[in-house]
């Protein structure tokens, strides 16, 4: 049975084309994916991301447990509301999921995980909690709305002036609690904005107020091209349980500074040397890159993991896993419908904050 978010009726009323995404009936676009993409780069748009799952963590061992559970180190979080992006690894060093952890105190955190992996993640977390004094509570009843774009915060405050005092001093990657909402200055677009976690019953009314404040509804199609331009990985496409974070452009999320800390997957990470790397590709020939296209390099073959047309660059871009030794600036061939097309290896950071970076 396909699941619906509390905003399902709002999407249908807005003329959304609905598709099955990880078992959820979600809007892919409301007319034009390209226009929606540009609205977020240039103004403000909102996404229903209620299919993602909040998981609350509380208890006197909350910090110690998270330091074991994930590869980044929550001990570095000291500012209330500060968030941390991390991988949760299996013992072999593969990525079970990528997630964001919000710190409120050493005994109180909130984790937000991907929709498609939520049940698997929660089961894994509960299994790893044995012996720790920690309560782990999935919050599937909460809705989430991401408001993104250069004008996103201003328009959010126009819709909710009462929330301004609580959220105007938030730095990037920091959240505040506002009544029973969580307002986080995070996102998945490469633009400024907020992600609001709120009770399901509040979601349709909040959506309506944001619409009235001229925030456009944006579908998951544009969400994907926005995150790809920003060089952000998509779990299940760019990394999964068989890939190491070091092969997925996520080495920066591994924190090995505290030698005494033993997190799950650490020994495998130290022992296994990556043979591959995740890079960006810019297509120089005409065409469109898609995932799972073969790449021919002097150092061996690789594969695109995500690919699309970049509305900002007006060219095709991709994330790709290629052998170590391939360098930024190299020219490679991508096999598109049996024909080799020329692409250039670039840093996987194509566009952010309204601007092309290539």
């Amino acid at each position, binding site marked *: 049975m396909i699941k619906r978010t509390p905003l399902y009726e709002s999407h249908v009323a807005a003329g959304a084309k609905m598709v099955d995404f990880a078992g959820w009936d979600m809007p892919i676009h409301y007319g*034009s*994916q*390209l226009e929606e993409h540009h609205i977020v780069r240039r103004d403000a748009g909102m996404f229903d991301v209620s299919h993602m799952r909040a998981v609350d963590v509380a208890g006197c061992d909350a910090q110690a447990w998270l330091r074991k559970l994930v590869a980044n180190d929550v001990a570095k979080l000291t500012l209330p509301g500060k968030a941390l992006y991390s991988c949760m690894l299996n013992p072999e060093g593969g990525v079970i999921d990528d997630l964001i952890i919000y710190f409120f105190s050493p005994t109180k955190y909130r984790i937000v995980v991907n929709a498609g992996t939520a049940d698997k993640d929660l089961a894994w977390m509960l299994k790893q909690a044995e012996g720790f004094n920690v309560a782990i509570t999935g919050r599937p009843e909460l809705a989430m709305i991401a408001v993104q774009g250069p004008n996103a915060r201003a328009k959010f405050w126009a819709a909710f002036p009462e929330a301004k005092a609580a959220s105007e001093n938030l730095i990037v990657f920091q959240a505040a609690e506002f009544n029973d909402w969580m307002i986080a200055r995070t996102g998945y677009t490469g633009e400024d904005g907020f992600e609001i976690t709120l009770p399901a019953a509040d979601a349709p009314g909040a959506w309506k107020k944001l619409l009235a404040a001229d925030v456009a509804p944006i579908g998951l199609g544009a969400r994907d*091209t926005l995150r790809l331009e920003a060089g952000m990985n998509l779990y299940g496409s760019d990394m999964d349980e068989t890939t190491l974070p070091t092969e997925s452009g996520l080495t920066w999320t591994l924190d090995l500074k505290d030698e005494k800390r033993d997190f799950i997957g650490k020994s495998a990470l130290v022992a296994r040397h990556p043979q591959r790397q995740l890079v960006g590709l810019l297509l120089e020939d*005409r065409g469109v890159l*898609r995932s799972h296209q073969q790449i021919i390099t002097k150092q061996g073959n690789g594969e695109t993991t995500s690919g699309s047309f970049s509305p900002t660059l007006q060219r095709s871009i991709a994330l790709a896993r290629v052998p170590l030794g391939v360098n930024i600036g190299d020219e490679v061939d991508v096999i598109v419908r049996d024909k080799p097309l020329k692409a250039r290896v670039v840093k996987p950071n194509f566009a952010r904050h309204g601007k092309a970076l290539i």
Partner: protein
Amino acid sequence: MSIPNDLKYTKSHEWVRQEADGTVTVGITDHAQEALGDIVFLELPEAGRTVKAGEECAVVESVKAASDIYAPVSGEVVARNDAAIDAPESVNQDAYAAWLFKIKVTDVSELAALLDAVGYAKVADEH
């Protein structure tokens, strides 16, 4: 969804217009462009290429996916729409104005096998 009465259609969502000079003009239907979403790239056959009815001869790519375009009839490609290659979004704007290519028909009996507007409306309804 627009399905003009004066055109012929294929089950694979191409439209075909018979011209007075023995050629046909081919494009994709309004239904097809809507299903594909924003179109960003066209690969069209070059003039001079000989195609068989049902042969893959062009590709339309949207932000979402790539879709093969099939020759509705056999013959020689005599023209392709370079303006549409430069502005792929024109297919979204008016799928019947933004033609893709023209074929000089070798066997006019193949035209009889194409669908009329009523027949295509049933196909489009099912997809």
